[in-house]
């Protein structure tokens, strides 16, 4: 059975923010809504704190930490981890949060009542956004894919793994512009898939595994 997942090679990620930008445009995301954030880290403790990002109020995205000559500058792209055992799924009272047979976790905005239970249950802080009010956009025209997710006031949104693109045989938008070729996508159950090949033989980390969610995003170290 197909089980979609992604591998992100942290040695290749240069923090260019192209994936975050591609996501924002492809999904026609309103102001204040982000699915994908590339954090800057000044340590290599991937679980404790994701780090800083301009979109989260930081002044810049490229400030190294530590003391010369032992400086540290890492980039950590974080989005919904499309967990095998999603904590958001259990707590959603309306069934708006759903998991497809191929492992993609998504939110049906027609069922979402904005209770925010999924936000509080998710161990990966910041991967979900609440549309508090009527969405506002930077542009007067709609951008991105014709079948981009709807954005509705009073509902929660998050990365869909670009299921609209996947369903027509394409890859997620964040893959398409990655200049460092840091992202790998495909069927985790297929040993020949790009993602399985990328993981093969590499050390990897899954975020906050202590939460028991079993994420489908692998960070290659």
């Amino acid at each position, binding site marked *: 059975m197909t089980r979609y997942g992604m591998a992100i090679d942290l040695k290749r990620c240069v923090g260019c923010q192209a994936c975050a930008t591609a996501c924002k445009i492809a999904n026609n995301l309103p102001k204040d809504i982000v699915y994908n954030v590339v954090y800057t880290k000044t340590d290599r403790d991937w679980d404790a704190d994701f780090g800083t990002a301009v979109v989260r109020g930081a002044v810049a995205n490229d400030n190294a930490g530590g003391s010369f000559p032992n400086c540290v500058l890492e980039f950590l792209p974080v989005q919904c981890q499309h967990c095998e055992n999603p*904590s958001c799924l*259990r*707590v*959603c*009272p*309306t*069934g*708006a949060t759903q998991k497809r047979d191929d492992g993609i976790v998504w939110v049906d905005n027609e*069922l*979402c*009542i*904005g*209770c*925010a*239970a999924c*936000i*509080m*249950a*998710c*161990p*990966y*802080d910041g991967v979900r956004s*609440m*549309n*508090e009010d009527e969405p506002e956009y930077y542009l007067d025209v709609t951008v991105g894919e014709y079948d981009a997710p709807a954005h509705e*006031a*009073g*509902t929660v949104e998050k990365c869909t793994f670009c299921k609209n693109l996947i369903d027509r045989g394409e890859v997620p938008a964040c893959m398409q512009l990655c200049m460092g070729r840091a992202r790998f996508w495909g069927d985790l159950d297929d040993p020949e898939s790009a993602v399985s090949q990328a993981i093969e033989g590499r050390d990897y980390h899954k975020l906050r595994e202590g*939460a*028991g*969610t079993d994420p489908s995003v692998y960070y290659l170290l």
Partner: protein
Amino acid sequence: MISEFPLFIFTTLGGLSAGLVMAMAAFPPAEKPERPWLAPLTALVLLGVGMLGVLFHLKKPALFLLALRNPAAGIAQEAYCGIVLGVLLLALLVMSWRKGEAPRALTWIAAGVSLIMAFVMGFAYVTNVGTAAWANWTTVPLFVAGDIAMGLALWAVLSKDALEKRPFTLATAVVLAVSAATMLLTGLHFGSVGQGAALLYAGLAVTLAGAAVAVVAAKKPAAWQAGALIACALIGTCLARWAFYAASII
């Protein structure tokens, strides 16, 4: 103001209602009360206001019925319990009003549902693994003990003779002490995850003062004790719950 104020209202008033029903079942009046409908009516009003309050937690309150769809979700379980308890309280109220008293069995069934609701209200937060301060076993006893403590204290006010019964005053003292202990344990957990716990400890002190009042009442009942008990139980629990909801990540 805390972002989760509607939830604060729901679990405080709903919990107070649940605690009152448990107290009504455990310590029924020795003689037929003059106003047998007063306690069920109070519980029903508290539950109703609490459940109305929770609607303000939703961004789309008009669609609240959708929240009943997933029985595994804490919010849905709270709603099921609230609805069942509401129906039972309505039945208790009608019977008390019409016949002067309600069947004991019905009161006990309502008390059982109340206990389940108090547990569910706490457990709903334990499953929120994204909120480290909440996702801990101490959350369940914090809610259950707080609800029962508030309920006993309110029953001391509403019941004519509760404070004159030694088992009641001793039970109230024990429950208030246990509630204070759960605040201490929750405060220690909050500290371990970097969350402020000053209000929890303030709640602990006030709740312990309530326990002391109950001990005094066990030795020598007096009219002022009912008011002091409800004030201490309510203020102590509210301080603890305010601190709890202030830890929300939203």
